[in-house]
Structures are given as C-alpha cells and as structure tokens.
C-alpha cells in the first residue's frame, strides 16, 4: 500500500511526461491556492495580532525577573545608615521648609544647598541656565557636588539627584534633604570605586536637562547655560530621589525615558530586591497600587468595568489581569508619547541607566530611615559594577514588579498586524496588474494566466501619480508641524487648529472630481495608492516596534483596520462618510489642547520626537487612506 502511495507521490513530483512543465504547473497551482486564500490569511493574521495584544496581561504569561549581571550582588551588604543621619536629614528639612515659607528665590535655594555641601567638605558648584521656547522662558540654578572617591582614578561616576519639583507637582523637599544627608554620610566610606555626583536640579525637568547636556557637551538649540566648573568621569548609573509627601508606604519606580528608551532592567530588578529585602519597603510600578491590597480604593484603582457580574469581577485571575493591564496601559501611555516622568528619563540618551525612586505619599509607615537604607544599599550594588550594564536587557515589558515579558513574547503581536497590512498591500498591488477581459482575447500582446478560465489581461499601473499624492500628503504634514509649533499657534491654539484642520481636510475633496479612469486598460490610482500606503504603514510599524514598542502598538491599533479596509468602490455619500472618519482619525488630536501643548513642550525643550512623528508620519498615512476612499474606482 505504502509503496503504491510513494510511487504515486513520486510520479506526481516528477510530473509524469514532461518534468519541467509539470513543475511549472505545480508552481502555478500553489500560487493559485495561496492567491485564493490570501484574504483569509490576512484577516487571520490581523485577528491573531490583536488577540495577542489582548493576551499580554494574562496572569500565566510573563516570567519572574532575575539579575543578569553577576557583579551586582544586590542586597548582599549591611547598611549602616541610622538615626543620627535621619536626624541630620530632618535638620536639613527644617531649613528647607524655612526657605519654602519665605518663598525664596532660586539663588537663595542654591546658595543654601551649596553652603551645606561645602560644610561637608565636598567640592560643590552651581550652574544657572535659561531656556526659551515658543511658550515662554525658564530660568533656574542647579547645584551639583562631586565627591571624588579616595583611591579611585575618578574615571567613572554615579549620579544621585533630586529635582526641586516632584513629579507630582509638589516641592521635593524631603528628596533634597535625603540627598544632602546621604552626601555627608557616604563621605565617611572609602570604598567607592566611582565618584559620586550629587545634583540638586532646579525646576522639574529643565534643570537636569541643562546640567546633563552641558556635562556631555551636547549643544541644545534653545538652552543657554553656564559651563560646568567641576568635572568627573563617565556616569554609568543614576538614582533620582523623589519624596514629596510626609511619609510613604511604597517605593514606586519610574523608568521610561525620552523617546521610549528604557534603562537596563538589571537596575530596576536590583533596586526591587534591595528595597524589598534590605529596606523592607514594597515596590510598585509607578504609583499604581494593587487594588486587592486596598479594598476601599478598589473602585477607583481597578479598571475592571463595574457592570461585570461579581462572579467574574471577584475572580482572582480577572483582578490579576486588570492589575497587569493597568500597569501596561500606564507604560504604553508614557512610552508611546516618548515623554519621561521624572528626571531619570533625561539621562538615558547619554547611556546612563537611571530610575526615579518615588516615595508614594501616604500616612506611613516609612520615612527617611527606610529610604536612606534602600539608597545606600542600592548605591553599594551599583558600586559593584565592573562594566557598563550591557546584557541585552533593554527590551522588556514590566507587567508588575518582579514580573516581565521578554521581547519575544510581546513583539510578535505588532509584527503580525504589520505583516497582515503588508500582505493586503501586496494583494492590492497584484490585483491592480490584471483586469478581466470580457471581449474575445486578441492574438497580440497578452499574457494569460490560466486561473479558473477567466482571461486576465495585464495593464499598466500609474505608480508615479500615487507616489506624488503620498509625497504631497507628507509635505503637508511637515507644514502642519511647523505651523502648529509656531509662535502664533502658541498664542491662538483653537483658531490654528481649526484652520489647519480645514486646510488639510478640504483639498483632498478635489479627488471627487477626478473622472474615473477612461478604460479598464489602466489600473485606478486608488488601488495603487492603497497598496503603497499599506506597504509604507506596515514598514513604519515594524521598524518602530524595535525602537518604541508602545508607539508601534498604538499605531497598529489605530492604523491596522482602517488602512487595510479602506475602499474606493462605494457610492458618493459613503465616500464622504468614510473620508470624514479618516479626517477625524488623522486630525482629531489637534483639539486635545493639553496633549498638544505638552508634546510641543517636550519637543522644544527635551527633543522628544513624538510631535513631529505624529505630524509627518501618522497624519499623512491616515489622510492617504482617506484620499483612497475618495478616489474613483
């Protein structure tokens, strides 16, 4: 039996009489099969992609974090930070509060802090800076001190910083007090292999931006800052201490940096270990507490919809899912916009792995004592480093403290969507090549693909026009960006938004009066435009996914379905309706004023690419889809 089968199979392979012809036939058959099943393939890919995204927070997905760099040895040391140092911190706090109450000037703050550092015998200096952008000016004075460690060459450094304004808007007095007291305490050690650089930066972000850019000699267009008079070595790691409240219950870790750059995961993990085991302080992602810990707040913390029946809501798996989902959503919110929350994010672009320790304000139980010990032990851990943190530990998705997803487990979701878009585009492109010939086939110039008896003729494709349309839309995007970031727009945001919306939305309507292509002989522009649009979008998504996963995911959600199913074969009202939707999708953001403001500020002061990206890449892509839906078939 088997023998017969094998013989049959072999004959099928060899194709009986004429081998080559049979091979070609078989190839065509396979092509036909693939071609026929293409729509279902792309659909299934799309569905699979979105399903994967939804599956990311599942409790049984993800693995426990571990320390990859053996040298770190987190939490292996005794800490000697103790009440005397806490008292000193309290004394600093008192005088800082005086400064606050007399609402002193930047210079007075700087003067006081400088004096205190000098009293400790640490070389200290100040740097005043001056930012100007469309929306206004920012002045301030940083204080920075370099404790050059004994016995060491001073070629490496660690940075401990506290910004004067906390990330929740209050003054970060306790943070500053902690740093001052720590400086005095750490000076008694002689075991630092790296210099310690203490920075009390003015303002919230801009102070540290001024300091770190002039430390690395990077030139900022709209920054005017004093040169630094003290220098130290290469900064490897940094801790930013943010302690706005009176006391705290948890330590939250903020880690997203500018343009979606993440610090090495080892830093976060070792901090988590130290904080949990040395300091005895539980760790949170951001300031997001687990609803299950605080039942009375559950209603406002949890994102599980309330209309669900309790049977579902009380399921632990469901609550776990909700908890993780909210963490991820926060992460996506920060990373996709490329913004940072906390000073640490400004350091990443200089290859400094940095995180912010945020003392989540609450009525206890912890204070200076716990924080000091955690920071001391974390610094000892960072001090153990012999090399840059280099294990490829920069691509991860923290779903909750101590649990993360490897890149292999979350990236495919986005890639699947982009692949499906790519297939759609290719299908559209090949479609446009053939048209059904209803007349009798003529003898000349036709190549025939025998597919189900229908005779398909080849036809030219108007590539150039399509490409020109795309180019035009992207140029429009550039214009949009420059106008929106101009000084005028800063003054009258609403009017600008309206006019811009109109300017961008109306011209494509002329596409309506384009007469449909004279004959079947040449493919409709719309199909080519759609194909190109989809290929470009898919490329953008897949390329972005390695740089900034959250952004790619958002793009995949926003662009995936609308672009794949943009259609030009519909009646006029439908066309208009579709177009309106696309306009809303592409330009709606113009009207969320606060978001736009923040994005522009981030671009001008910190150089975050989110705003230009939206204007020059995202909006044009959507508009192209809109134009597709306007164009005649």
């Amino acid at each position, binding site marked *: 039996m088997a023998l017969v089968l094998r013989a049959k199979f072999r004959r099928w392979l060899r194709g009986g009489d004429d081998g080559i012809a049979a091979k070609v036939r078989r190839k065509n058959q396979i092509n036909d099969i693939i071609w026929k099943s293409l729509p279902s393939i792309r659909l299934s890919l799309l569905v699979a992609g979105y399903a994967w995204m939804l599956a990311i927070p599942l409790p049984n997905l993800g693995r426990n974090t571990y320390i990859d760099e053996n040298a770190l*040895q987190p939490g*292996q*040391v*005794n800490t000697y930070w103790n009440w005397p140092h806490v008292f000193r911190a309290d004394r600093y706090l008192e005088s800082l509060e005086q400064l606050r109450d007399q609402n002193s000037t930047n210079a007075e703050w700087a003067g006081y802090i400088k004096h205190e550092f000098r009293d400790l015998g640490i070389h200290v200096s100040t740097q005043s800076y001056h930012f100007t952008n469309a929306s206004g000016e920012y002045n301030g004075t940083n204080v920075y001190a370099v404790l050059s*460690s*004994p*016995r*060491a060459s001073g070629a490496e450094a660690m940075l401990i910083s506290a910004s004067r304004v906390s990330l929740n808007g209050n003054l970060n007095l306790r943070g500053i007090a902690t740093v001052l007291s720590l400086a005095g305490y750490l000076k008694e*050690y*002689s*075991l*630092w*292999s790296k210099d310690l650089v203490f920075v009390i930066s003015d303002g919230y972000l801009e102070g540290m931006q001024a300091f770190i850019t002039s430390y690395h000699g990077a030139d900022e267009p709209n920054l005017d800052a004093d040169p630094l008079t003290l220098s130290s070595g290469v900064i490897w790691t940094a801790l930013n201490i943010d302690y706005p409240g009176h006391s705290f219950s948890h330590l939250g870790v903020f880690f997203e940096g500018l343009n979606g750059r993440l610090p090495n995961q080892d830093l976060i993990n070792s901090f988590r270990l130290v904080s949990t085991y040395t300091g005895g302080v539980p760790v949170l992602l951001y300031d997001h507490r687990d609803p299950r810990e605080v039942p009375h707040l559950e209603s406002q913390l949890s994102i599980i919809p309330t209309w669900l029946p309790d049977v579902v809501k009380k399921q632990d798996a469901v609550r776990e899912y909700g908890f993780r989902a909210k963490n991820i959503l926060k992460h996506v919110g920060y990373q996709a916009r490329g913004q940072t929350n906390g000073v640490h994010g400004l350091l990443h672009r200089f290859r400094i792995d940095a995180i912010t320790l945020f003392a989540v304000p609450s009525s206890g139980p912890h204070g200076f004592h716990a924080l000091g010990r955690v920071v001391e032990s974390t610094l*000892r851990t960072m*001090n*153990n480093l012999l090399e840059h943190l280099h294990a490829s530990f920069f691509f991860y998705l923290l779903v909750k403290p101590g649990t993360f997803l490897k890149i292999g487990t979350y990236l495919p979701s986005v890639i699947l969507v982009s692949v499906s878009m790519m297939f759609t585009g290719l299908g559209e492109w090949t479609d446009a090549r053939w048209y059904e010939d209803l007349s009798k086939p003529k003898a000349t110039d036709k190549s025939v693909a025998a597919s189900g008896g229908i005779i398909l003729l080849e036809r030219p494709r108007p590539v150039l026009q399509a490409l020109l349309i795309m180019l035009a839309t992207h140029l429009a995007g550039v214009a949009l960006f420059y106008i929106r970031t101009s000084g005028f727009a800063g003054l009258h945001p609403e009017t600008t938004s309206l006019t811009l919306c109109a300017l961008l939305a109306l011209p494509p309507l002329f596409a309506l009066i384009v007469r449909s292509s004279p004959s079947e002989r040449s493919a409709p522009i719309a199909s080519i435009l759609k194909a190109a649009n989809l290929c470009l979008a898919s490329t953008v998504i897949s390329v972005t996914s390695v740089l900034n996963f959250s952004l790619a995911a958002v793009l995949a959600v926003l662009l995936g379905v609308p672009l794949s199913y943009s259609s030009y074969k519909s009646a006029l009202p439908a066309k208009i309706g579709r177009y309106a939707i696309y306009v809303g999708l592409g330009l709606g953001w113009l009207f969320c004023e606060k978001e736009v403001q923040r994005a522009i500020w981030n671009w001008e002061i910190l150089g975050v690419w989110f705003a230009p990206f939206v204007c020059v890449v995202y909006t044009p892509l959507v508009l192209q889809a809109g134009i597709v839906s306007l164009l005649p078939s």
Partner: protein
Amino acid sequence: MANALGMYRTVKRLGIPDSNIILMLADDAACNSRNKFPGCVYPAAARDLDLYGDNIEVDYRGYEVTVENFIRVLTGRMDSSVPRSKRLLSDDRSNVFVYMTGHGGNEFLKFQDNEEISAFDIADAFEQMWQKKRYNEIFFMIDTCQANTMYSKFYSPNILATGSSKLDENSYSYENDMDLGISVIDRFTHYVLRFMESVNKTSQATMQDLFDMYDPDKFASHAGVRSDLFNRPIDQTLITDFFGGVSQAEVLAPEEEFYYSSTPEGGHQQESESFTHVDSATTSGAVKSNNDEIHGYSDLLSVVQDLQREPPKRDTTGLFRTWVSSGLMFALVAWVSMRK
C-alpha cells in the same frame, strides 16, 4: 580569591620561599577600592586572619592571567626576557603542587570570564612537563563546580589529583561577608585549610589523612580523589612532600590564581644572593654639591624661545612637489582631451 590566598599562606607557612611560589591573581580584591578593608583578604566573615598580610608577591595579575600564560608557566616555554620570578624552575626532582579555583564546569575552568581552559589542555601540559623532566610528582587540587571532571583526562605518571565536587555538582561557598557583600571562601578549601593548620614542617600527616577528612555533608558536594597515576601508596605520602621543605608546589585559580614551586637550585640561588651582600668596600663620604644646574624646564624654555622666534615652518618641498604633480596631472588631462 581567599581560596588561593589561603593555599599560598599555607605553603609559605610550611617554609617555601616566595621565589618558588608562582601566584596568579586575576582581580585585585585586596586593594580594589571596593574593598572595605584595604590590603586585606579574609577567609572568613569573622575577619580574624588576614591572608594578604603585609608580605606577598603576586607574579601574574590582572590581564596577565590568561590560559596561554598558565600553560607557558607549566611547560616552561617562555620568552627569553621573562624574569625568573615568573617561571616555574623545576626539574625531575621537584614535586609540584597545582591548585586551581574559580568558575568551572564540565571539563573546563573559566579564566577571566572570557576564555576557558579544558581538562585536555592541562593533561597535555602535564604530559609535556613529564617529557621535559619538569617534575617528579604532581599533586593537583581544584575547587570549582564539577571539579572532578578537570582531572579525569590526566594520563601522565606520578600525578595525584583531588577535586571538590563531582560531575553535575556545584561546590558551594562557605560563608558570606555582609560588609564586603561577597562570599569569601569555598567550603572545600575552607576545610582543607583548616586541616592544613594542624600540619607543620615536621608533621607526619599523610595524604590519606587529608582525604579521610573529606565529608560530603560539610562540603555539600562529593570531593574526589584520583590516585591511579600515582605510584606511591597514599598513606605513605607525606603532606609535606608537596607542601613544605624542599618539595615544590604550585597553586592556581582563574578568578584568582596562584601556583607555587620550589626547586633546590632556585633555593640556593636565593641563598647565594642574600650572602653576596657582605663585602668589603672603602669609604668616601662625598657630600653632594648643589651646583649642577640641570633643570628640566630650563632647556624647555630654550625650546619655547626658539618657537617664539620663528613660527613652525611648513615643509615647502612637499608643497612644491604637490604643485608639480597637480600641474602634471592637469597637463595630462589637457593633452588627452586635445587628442582626437
């Protein structure tokens, strides 16, 4: 780190001079600025005994600790300019003691985290030593994970080998110093050293006694012994044959490594040096005079003044040459474009 230094101290205590010890240490634990107790390395968290002491000679340290150097030390294939303190000066009467510790695995031992030495390498090196008559007997001791696999490939005669753990076993650290933040010494070495403390130059303790001391429960691993290549009965082999007197030994470890030998000649050489000092000489209490005027910066100044006189000259010939060549280049182009 403490493992190797402990051995070093032991063999030194049993009377083998530094000149016959070759110590290889890959990291500078003692004076690393991360060390809370500078210049000290303690074998226990109690920190009662400082292994580094104030008298130690490290022959290979830092990046010098490589597989290549280790093999060269064993086989004696050295560049002529390598000083004798970095050589293993042994002959067919020398007993060599080799001790290695560090991160290991099945039949390999890591050096500096970036290269490995395999059991075959060491076995071949020993064979070379045997053929070049560089040892009489070797006692090989190793303390790593899966240590016993390292001596499984030996095939040269007169080698006695022992290891801390067998295949698929880790050898665990004895205790952890919470001030240094590292684990200080491994169990196997810790107990071997403790045993050695009971040995002195005249001790009659034999290898058998040492091996009898092995205890899987204390080691948390099964230490192994290989004596089939060894042609003497173990219970008549004195520890001091390897660890003391005129014998010779060697100790090594990749993370921190150290190796030690003593040859009769080596010994005498040292002696003779220390005696040539006494010698008659005549007195001349010439007091130094202040008046020789060689000031580094004075002739620097002259350079400076020269510089100020004429600005740095450009090499005109080079410029001339370039002019000529570019001229000729253009001539060529012109000529070619003239031609039809």
